Each structure stands twice: as C-alpha cells, then as structure tokens.
C-alpha cells in the first residue's frame, strides 16, 4: 500500500497516494479538467512536463502553479477551475 496523504481540492478533503503530482490528484478527484482559459474553455494537463501551461492551479494561495510539476504534500490546499 502506498503512503496515503490528505490534501484539499476546492475546499474538499481528498486522500491521495503520497508522491503523486497535483495534476494527478485533481484528476483522481473526478474532475475532467483543471484550468480554464481566458475565454472559459476547460483545459487539462496536455504535455505533463511543464511546457504547455494548461494545467495551472492555485496551490496554497499561489496562482498559476503548474500542477504537473508539483508533488502533493500533506495539507496542501489546491484550487482548480471546474
């Protein structure tokens, strides 16, 4: 069994395996997308390697964090677009 940790996604506590990325955690929580473009289109992690910037979320109050490059930590507060 992997080590499980708890994070908060849009105010809801979610338990995820330790060591996964924030992008993976947001998708595991059942959302189909992560980030909305300026025109409102729902976007998700396209490249998974920090290049496309389509997976940006707010982490602990800091906006525009690339979720695919950020590892979940216990207690992390994640805010993703829906």
């Amino acid at each position, binding site marked *: 069994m992997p080590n499980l940790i708890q994070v908060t996604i849009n105010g809801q506590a979610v338990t995820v395996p330790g060591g996964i990325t924030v992008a993976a955690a947001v998708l595991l929580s059942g959302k189909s997308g992560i980030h909305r473009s*300026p025109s409102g289109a729902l976007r998700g992690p396209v490249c998974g390697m920090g290049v496309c910037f389509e997976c*940006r979320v707010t982490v602990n109050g*800091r*906006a*525009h964090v690339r979720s695919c490059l950020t590892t979940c930590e216990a207690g992390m507060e994640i805010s993703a677009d829906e």
Partner: protein
Amino acid sequence: MASGFDIVIVGAGIVGAACAAELAREGMRVAVVDRDIIGGGATAAGMGHIVVMDDSEAQFALTRYSRRLWRDLHSGLPPQAEYETPGTIWVAADESEMQEVRRKHEYYASRGVAAEILDSKMLAEAEPNLRPGLAGGLLVPDDAVVYPPVVARFLLERERGVSVIAGSAVRAITNDGVALEDGTRISAAKIVNAAGDASPNLTAGVRVAPRKGHLVITDRYPGFVRHQLVELGYLKSAHTHSAESVAFNVQPRRTGQILIGSSRQYGVTNADVDPAIVSAMLSRALQYMPGIGTLSAIRCWTGFRASTPDKLPLIGPAPGTDHVYLATGHEGLGITTSLATAKLLASQITGREPEIAVTPYLPARVMDGEKHA
C-alpha cells in the same frame, strides 16, 4: 508608379497612423508605407501608458493636450484596444521625493490637471503590494492605459482615403514621393517621415537615436497592481543621458497581467534581451514590490524608442525642404503624444491655427537645414 496620393507617410506606427487619420479627415488621399506590419515597432514594444509629464513646459503642453484627445477618442475604440483609466501613482520612497510630489502637485493643480497627494498610509491602501514604509505618492487619476497596436490599426481603418502598404521598406524619400526597396515608386506632393528610430535613414540630419528598452509581462494576477506605478526616481532615469538605467514602472492590464519595466540604454542596436538588464530591472521592481517575486513572467522583449537631444519630438517641416515633414523622435511618450502630433502636423500642412503652439516641436530647433537641403 502608384499615384493619386496627396501625402505618403513612412511608418505605420501609432504616430504615422494618427497622422494618416488626421490628414484623411482633412480630405487628403494618404498612403502609409511600413517595412513591417501595422504598429509592429516601438508601438507594439511599449507599455501604452497615456501620461501627463512635466519635464518641460513644452512636454507638459503636448502630453496634456494629447491626453485630452485620447479621452475624446476612447469611446469609439474597439474593446481590443483595452483602454482603461487606472491613473498613475508617482511613488515617493523618501522625504526628498515627497518634496518632488508636492512640487509636481502644485504644478499640475495650477494648470488644471487633477492630482492628489497620497501619504504613506493612503499609498499602502491604494496599493497593498507595495512594500511598507514608502513615503507616499502623487495620484494622477486621469492617466490611462491602452494597447497601442490595435489603436494604430483602428486609426488607419477609420477614415476613407487611407491606403496602407505594409511589408515594403522605403529606400528613399524623393522629390516627388518615395522609392521602395522593390523599385516601386509612390508619388505624392508631400511626404511625412514617421519612421521612429529609423527616421534618420531617410532624412539626413535628423538627430534621433535609438534608446533600447526591455519589458516583462506576467501571467494573470487580477488586482495585484491597481494603478500604473512609477517611481519618482524614474524621472532621473528617463531624463538623464547616461548610458543605461532602470526604474520601477509597473502597469496593470485589463487581462490581469502586469507589465514590468523599465530600462533605457543608448548605443545598443541589437534587439536581444539582455539578461543583466532584465535582472537589474526586476531587482528594482522587487525593491518596491517584493511580491512580484512570486509571480510568473511569461514573456520578455525589447524595443527602441526614438530619442532626441532635448527630449521633445520633431513635428514639422524638415529644414531645407518644402515637401518633407517629420513626425518622429517621441522617445517614451509616442503613444501619449501621437494624437497631438497628428493635430499639430495637420495644422502645419493645412495652414490652420493649432490648439497649442507648435514652435517647441519644430525640427529646425535641432537641425541645420542648409547642410541637408
């Protein structure tokens, strides 16, 4: 040979575009030629700050007049022009700069330009992300912000009678028009050189030098900055002739993005981003606004201001000719002063009385006509 034009304007930047619109409104048939695209030079590289400045009486008269013209124009602009009126705050770091705030306030107030002195607490409330402990500032609420390339296109398309020839470099201004690099000739009785930092290549004796600038733009952080913020030390940076300088100068865009400037360099002609300059510029910004360090920058670029020896533009006949006019040398104020430039140029071409005196901007003040006839 293309013909049938009364005027050919070299340069489709904001200045050339404004002149084209104004002259077309007077009933003239105008051709505008640009080596690149509409509004692709300094017009696209700058911040688009519409600001009243008081470095000299002549600069004040031109910027105040032009800001009023922008206010008249703005309701007709397309939304993509992103015209906003956040106002400018001139930020004073210490008591000596507060003295400058008071002087500037008195100067503006006595000449009918709204301005409000902010003490340290009022400044912190107006801009919570500035570092604590700054002395205060001067809020100039009617200063504005715009996205200039869209306005350049708007002005060129607004009036009937303007033809744009983009992607064609002018090789020479001739006695009866211009000659393009590809051999095409465009004939017109009068020619306006509005080619910005390239204007000396086409009219001998034009004392315009490129002054390189860098800008950084961030991702979207709505509300992080609320006004255009400029350190009062900017005046020292902008108005000295030293080889290079940086100043804290940030601007909120309608998108929530933040433009971070500014730098000034003489004697550099390559357009590469210089990491040392960007670093100095951002360090300066961090001194005023430490939180900038947590934001993501998404692009950085450079541009060349067309600077003159006395910090005023060249608007009027090129000395020694009777058919070539100059509308260049606007340095860092070309967006602000483009509309007034067009009015002053049109008044000279049509013989109509201008709304403000043209004398301080006539090219003859810094050019020797006989040598260049």
